[in-house]
């Protein structure tokens, strides 16, 4: 009975594999374990939690970015763009994947809403990579990993939450996250470069014949034509954020309007396309948020069963038994493992309040510790069975991509992520140097 929360995780993992939609599996499992653990009346709190999803203003960016992405896709602008990107970056092996990482980092620097980034890039970049003969695993892994970069590259919601709980200023955390974020970008790029060198078939360069068929002049003309829309959108979205015209959430609407304007300007607009865009936006938006409603039920039961107490007790007892560095290692491993099942908000609320005071008492730098947690939490988006980045990608990619491809594809990126975490552990200056320079000690 005491370990009911643990059994619930196990049951969920097995039941998810059956392939029934995730949200209902979550809710059904939660209902079953809730009835065993505490009965019906506690479930009266469920609508309050779903209401929390409905009122989460930050999440409005998701339907808006979906609208933008689908509009670009349906109007054929995306295809043109990606073809050109293929020409530009396709000359070297892995070039296309590397450009995806860079775009992911840019989107991360502007918004940092994982769902929005993954959905946009899943719609636009995955089909191009597949057309260019990329291995399915590498293509999907690149997109789902790059989509999570916004979690660490500031501004980042998770850093604000952690900062609030630990009592470190948001500005310090944002500055502290800059180098670790860039480090991860660098590591992703490095991995892609190495793997495309070792496995030429996974990320092929464009055939020489195709490249030769295009004259330099044609290339420049096509680039001008195809690069204008994305640059225009990039300037519209990022520009409106950095110029202080729109909040990160609102900038998504600027992007959606921008995409529509481009479609009209290119004479690709029709009522047929508008209908398709709107209807696809509804389906993808529902997919994302109905999962969150299922997760709300699961989280409620996890707490109702005392799951957080169990974790807290365990963490508290660690502090007395081992050396400081050992405790840090165990804590990081534990967060990593729990990240397979819980989303980052749950983990932030369960772990950080218990851990932070202990770690600060140990003499670890608070900013550094917060960054470590944030990098670790970023991984939770990428780890199956319950990784939001993976779900979002599954929903927007063509049917020939299965969950299996996505799961296999993410593994190397999770490993890279662990390497990145280890580097920040070994070199705390990566997180602590910049805040001191910018804001003074």
């Amino acid at each position, binding site marked *: 009975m005491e370990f009911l929360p643990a059994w619930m995780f196990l049951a969920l993992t097995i*039941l*998810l*594999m*059956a*392939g*029934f939609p*995730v*949200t*209902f*599996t979550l*809710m*059904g*499992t939660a*209902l079953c374990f809730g009835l065993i653990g505490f009965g019906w009346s506690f479930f*009266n709190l*469920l*609508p*309050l939690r*779903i*209401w929390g999803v*409905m*009122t*989460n*203003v930050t999440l*409005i960016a998701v*339907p*808006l970015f979906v*609208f933008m992405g689908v509009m670009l896709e349906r109007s054929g602008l995306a295809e043109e763009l990606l073809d050109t990107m293929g020409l530009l970056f396709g000359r070297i092996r892995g070039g296309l994947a590397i450009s995806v990482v860079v775009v992911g980092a840019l989107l991360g620097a502007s918004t940092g809403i994982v769902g929005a980034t993954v959905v946009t890039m899943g719609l636009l970049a995955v089909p191009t990579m597949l057309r260019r003969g990329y291995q399915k695993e590498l293509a999907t892994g690149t997109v789902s990993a790059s989509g999570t970069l916004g979690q660490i590259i500031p501004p980042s919601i998770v850093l604000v939450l952690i900062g609030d709980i630990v009592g470190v200023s948001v500005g310090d955390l944002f500055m502290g996250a800059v180098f670790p974020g860039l480090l991860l970008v660098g590591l992703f790029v490095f991995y892609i470069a190495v793997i495309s060198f070792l496995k030429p078939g996974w990320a092929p360069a464009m055939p020489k014949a195709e490249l030769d068929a295009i004259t330099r002049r044609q290339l420049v003309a096509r680039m001008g034509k195809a690069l204008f829309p994305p640059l225009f959108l990039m300037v519209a979205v990022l520009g*409106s954020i950095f110029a202080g*015209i*729109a909040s990160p*959430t*609102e900038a*998504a*609407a*600027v992007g*959606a*309007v921008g995409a*529509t304007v481009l479609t009209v300007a290119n004479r690709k607009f029709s009522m047929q396309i*508008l209908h398709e865009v*709107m*209807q696809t*936006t*509804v*389906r*993808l*938006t*529902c*997919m994302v948020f*109905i*999962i969150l*409603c299922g997760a709300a*039920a699961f989280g409620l039961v996890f707490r109702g069963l005392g799951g957080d107490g169990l974790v807290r007790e365990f963490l508290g007892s660690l502090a007395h038994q081992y050396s400081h560095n050992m405790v840090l290692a165990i804590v990081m491993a534990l967060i990593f493992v729990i990240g397979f099942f819980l989303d980052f908000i749950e983990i932030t609320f369960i772990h950080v309040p218990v851990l932070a005071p202990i770690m600060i008492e140990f003499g670890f730098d608070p900013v550094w510790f917060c960054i470590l947690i944030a990098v670790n939490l970023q991984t939770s988006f990428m780890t*199956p*069975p319950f990784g939001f980045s993976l779900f979002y990608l*599954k929903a927007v990619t063509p049917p020939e991509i*299965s*969950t*299996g491809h996505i*799961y296999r594809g993410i593994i190397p990126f999770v490993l890279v992520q662990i390497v990145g975490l280890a580097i920040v552990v070994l070199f705390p200056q990566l997180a602590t140097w910049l805040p001191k320079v910018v804001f003074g000690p």
Partner: protein
Amino acid sequence: MVNLLKGICGVIDRSNEVVGRGVSWITLLLVAVVFVDVVMRYLFKTSFVFTQELEWHLFAFIFLIGAGYTLLHDGHVRVDIIYQRLGVKGRAWINLIGVIVFLIPGCYLVISTSWKFVGNSFSMLEGSPDPGGIPYRFIVKGTMTVGYVLLLLQGISMGMHALLQILGVETVDEENA
């Protein structure tokens, strides 16, 4: 009997299709409202709490009322490692059992508990706590119950389709594939 099932499925499917197409216009409205708010604030230095709240009201409306429509188009994510290897009947069995074990109880859970939550809000005609906000908070709360009723209905239709497929009287129709 088979015809009755088919008839019920047809009615549910068509209803959610209509609802979904209606809701799709809200996405366009959402884009417009947020964009206009940004422009008004930047150019004319003015903004209304009413429209800022309208943004998340519309957002909540989209994902709840559109949920049944999304299920109709099999748009809710599955972990399909095993599912995709199964044939039509294997999938139908998973769907039928899933509907009975997970979907119907889950939707019933939300509908029955939210009924109380929403009823409470209706009885006091709850409004926004922020001045200038939308005074109809009870309506947006009500979309929770309505959304899950639509989801439940579509789930029942999904179960019936699965049953018909198991019985071999329905081939996988294009729309639900």
